[in-house]
């Protein structure tokens, strides 16, 4: 019996002694097994496309497969919660975005995790801008006319979005607050469904990403009002930014990679380096250019500071809009 105890104690001591050693080794040789990249949205969307591209690039550079895994639900919160509670060893990372890190905390009455405390920023990946379009029969051609129309016809304007808390929704709320106008939010399940009713004229306007809307803009079915970015879009060189059109409103939809909080710094730095290398490649440019997106090179610290900024920026907008998800 004592022998067994002694053996057990010896094993435990050995284990305790070995642990720091193996952890240090683990960091040097990371990764030694496949990495899982959790994508918090269903396949096919922008987040999915960019994340899968990064996963492919990382697989080549790290010599270990980076496996993309979709875990959609609750506007990204299901995946966020899952990753927040995963072991911080660098083998589970997630593709985050504006919604998860900056909107959901203000929008959801209950969050099962803290986006700043439970997730560690690794790197930004891409940014993309939205455009505001109105139905062709709405008697306005630019932002000034739209605001004037809204003030003359209170309660008449409606705006469609792909759901509560999505970027088209909060872009609309931001516009309402900045311009001091009223518009009824009509949520849909997908960008496509929202677009149909704006095309048919049942809803007055919508925000949306440019590649999705450009064909209808070119054909004249939608009238573009302004783009949300700091600069004009290459795809729509004649459409002003909101700032140029006279309204101080700039926003972008952004994407990045985070890991569970507590992931060792050397691992985060290594991932950041490799992700940036993937982003700087020609293949990334080939992918992002037609999507009107730009690659976004950051250090983990820059990305972290950006997240805090964005969270502070959106919180009051969402609170003021009254939108909440229970």
């Amino acid at each position, binding site marked *: 019996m004592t022998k067994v105890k002694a053996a057990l104690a010896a094993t435990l001591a050995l284990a305790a002694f070995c642990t720091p050693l193996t952890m240090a080794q683990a960091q040097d040789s990371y990764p030694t097994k496949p990495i899982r990249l959790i994508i918090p949205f*269903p*396949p*096919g*969307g922008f987040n*999915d*496309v960019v994340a*899968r*591209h990064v996963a*492919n690039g990382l697989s080549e550079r790290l010599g270990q497969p980076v496996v*993309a*895994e*979709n*875990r*959609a*639900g*609750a506007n990204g*919160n*299901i995946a966020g*919660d899952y990753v927040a509670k995963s072991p911080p060893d660098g083998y589970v990372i997630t593709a985050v975005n504006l919604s998860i890190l900056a909107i959901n905390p203000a*929008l959801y009455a209950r969050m*099962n995790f803290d986006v700043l405390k439970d997730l560690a920023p690794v790197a930004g990946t891409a940014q993309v801008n939205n455009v505001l379009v109105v139905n062709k029969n709405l008697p306005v051609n630019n932002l000034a006319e739209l605001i004037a129309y809204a003030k003359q016809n209170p309660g008449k304007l*409606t705006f469609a979005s792909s*759901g*509560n*808390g999505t970027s088209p929704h909060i872009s609309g709320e931001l516009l309402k607050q900045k311009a001091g106008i009223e518009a*009824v939010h*009509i*949520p*849909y*399940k*997908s960008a*496509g*469904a929202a*677009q*149909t*009713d704006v*095309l*048919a004229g*049942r*809803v007055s306007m919508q925000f949306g990403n440019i*590649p*999705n*809307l*450009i*064909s*209808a803009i*070119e*054909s004249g*079915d939608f009238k573009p009002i302004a783009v949300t970015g700091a600069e004009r879009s290459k795809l729509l060189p004649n459409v002003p930014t909101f700032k140029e059109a006279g309204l101080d409103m700039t926003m972008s939809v952004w994407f990045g990679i985070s890991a569970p909080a507590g992931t060792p710094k050397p691992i985060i730095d290594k991932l950041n380096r490799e992700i940036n290398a993937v982003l700087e490649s020609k293949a990334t440019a080939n*992918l992002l*250019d*037609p*999507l009107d997106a730009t690659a976004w090179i950051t250090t983990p610290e820059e990305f972290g500071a950006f997240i805090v900024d964005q969270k502070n920026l959106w919180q009051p907008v969402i609170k003021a809009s009254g*939108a*909440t*998800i*229970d």
Partner: protein
Amino acid sequence: MDLILQGFIHAATLENLSYCLLGVTLGTFVGVLPGIGPLASISMLLPVTFYLDPTTALIMLAGVYYGAEYGGSITSILINLPGGTASAVTCLDGYPLARQGKAGVALFVTTIASFVGGSIGIIILTLLTPLVLAVGLAFGPAEYVSVMVLGLLAAASISSDSPLKGIGMVVMGLLLGFVGTDINSGVMRYTLNLSDLFDGVSIVTLAMGVFGVTEIIDSVLTPKGQMIAGKIRLSSMIPNRNEVRRSVFPTLRGTMIGCLAGPLPGVGPALASFVSYALEKRVARDPSRFGKGAVEGIASPEAANNAAVQTAFIPTLALGVPGSATMAVMMGALMIHGIAPGPNFIVKHPDIFWGLVASFWIGNVMLLVLNIPMIGVWVRLLQIPYRFLYPMIVMFMAIGAYSMNLSVFDIWLILAFGLFGYGMRLLGFPPAPLLIAFILGPMMEENFRRALLLGGGDFSIFILSPISGCLLALALALVVWFVLNGLRRRPPQEPDGEGALSSAE
């Protein structure tokens, strides 16, 4: 005409043809696995298409889509496990046919009806795109609600001799559909604080439970351990003259309904297949044959489904508005290549548009060529005694469902729905209306509330819109028919104590 010819030339390169074949084969194989439907198969293969020419990429994905849809029909017929809502209707008569040793006939009719429906759908797609678009755009929230009311009533009538039982299942399907986050307000409903339910019950677990598990429990003790009576002869593989004759008009009627319903985003194919089934049952001389292995009950919905699948591409390509999640993924594939589907798509990229149309047809032909010889193989599967077969089916269901979301909760759901479905089956309640209401319900609520939001709370919009008004009048007629039929109801000819073993209810 020139353009179509050019399309064929563009599509019929050796590379495109081989990718089309690859897509159809992969799609069929993956579609046969429970839980992995068209959406999952296409998503899995999406990254591959980054490296292909856009036309080739879309041709391959379209092939996967067809293949997976067809794969769902195969399992519906062979083991009563629908791949999706559309194929849930195929279960109704396909599975009884299989139990009679006529799985070959059922698969044959499915293949041919799908081909006819698909081909005619493509012709409509080619010739009438602007017209179909107009129909699609004319359907606002109010019109949607009315078409779904009609659909739900049709759903209640498609199986069982008692519409009241069908309506009971419809109501429970609607209730299940409420579970999850309310899209308008963001409130969690009926989630019991379980995060697994925040996005609602997944359609796959419900279908696997009420169809798959229920059927297995019911069939395990099948006498002699054999699913089908007697040997499979060649004559049971190919439809006889009578069966062919009986399939012709249902196929054409189904195609017509499919072409009309296809452009309605989100609901097209599923709605088309059970509305056409309900119609066939209505016009049949002897409606009691339905649900017991009537070939019309396969031909019409399969033709409708496939025609709708084709016309569903119209809003996706010509408006840039994907009608379903699957279509959204396909559109994503195009956008990655810098091609934005939308009103200008046909003008700006005629080569891709017509190449695609041509490849749809090529894909349909390939499905035909590939699957007719395969029918024999599938049918042989049924000769395995059921006591060996069913543990394998349980395995495929459990792993298929688990691999979807890696959620153990989904397994508990399948079990719960399976036991519920079995109980309801013993009581003579049909599962198909439950599944259909579960799909349509959330969409109906969403559109109902949106219609009133846009219409300022005035209920008259549902009657004042001409399309919506007509649809509601039709629905009312159906209700009157129910009531009259209910009053005339004869003593039920439901199976007695042996009912537990009979599937043809």
